[in-house]
């Protein structure tokens, strides 16, 4: 639960500014740096920035950081399967590319 004297409205607007600045940064880099720096570098930034935005939405907007520890675990732990599918299917997709070429 939210502790005494905690200004939730302030926290909400702080989170809004974080989300907005990160999004503007993403779009700004996409428009200015694409083609000038290795794409892999930009992609790593986009993924990290998106995960950061996801963290703030889930933690503050969805109040998950104020919930009990075991609830947080049951919600976040299944996402491990997603990570598994990302790795396995991207490797597989790369293999389809070679199959189509040769």
């Amino acid at each position, binding site marked *: 639960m939210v502790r005494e004297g905690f200004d939730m409205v302030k926290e*909400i607007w702080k989170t809004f500014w974080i989300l907005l600045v990160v999004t503007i940064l993403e*779009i700004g880099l996409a428009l200015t740096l694409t083609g000038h720096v290795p794409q892999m570098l930009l992609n790593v930034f*986009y993924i990290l920035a*998106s995960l950061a935005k996801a963290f703030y939405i*889930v933690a503050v907007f969805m109040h998950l950081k104020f919930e009990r520890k075991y609830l947080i675990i049951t*919600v976040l732990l299944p996402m491990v399967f997603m990570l598994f599918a990302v790795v396995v*299917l991207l490797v597989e997709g790369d293999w389809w590319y070679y199959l189509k070429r040769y």
Partner: protein
Amino acid sequence: MTESSLTMSVKPNVWQGGFSPFRISWGKLMMWYFLVGDSFSFGAFLITYGALRFSYESWPLPTEVFKSFPFLENVEVPLGFVSFMTFTLIMSSVTMVLAVHYGNAERNRYKVAKWLAWTIVGGLIFLSSQAWEWTHLITHGMTMKHNPFGAPAFGWLFFTITGFHGFHVFTGVIINIIILINVLRGVYDRRGSYEMVEKVGLYWHFVDLVWVFVFMAFYLL
């Protein structure tokens, strides 16, 4: 032994029954687990996108595909319109969380209704923007099977994934309207709890959360 059994009885164990170990209501818990399940349907969509994209030699450039803006016929604004859509969705998430806050903290019917109404407006702006973007791309030849910008799979994936997300926004707007009517009729004042607003709030934020990754996959990477 006596000492340990004594501390056991003094310190309440959350797993011994009698109340929710997660200290949230049944309905809210089920909303959380529904969203966990729903994240896997979007995960399946986006991972398919990734796998298919890796299997193509070249992929359409987002700055080439998404560069049109309504009412600006001959001007190229790469990623301009989608930035506006993203801002709308973030903003509507903020108005939603404010509605949830004023419901839980103050049970202020007027403030909840005000912020919920703004959330609905944000959702409708987002849906109209998406309708415009789809119409624009379809009239420029991008369909499920054809894509003038490159790989045909891009069109198929774009319409299914943004369509599935847009359908979530659409249902979210409908549910928000129902909850707004209930708020205005004072249903939650009589019930003594504004938790229903919090439950639809969870759903609405999830839609915003999914957009973060749809945006990343289609417009940035």
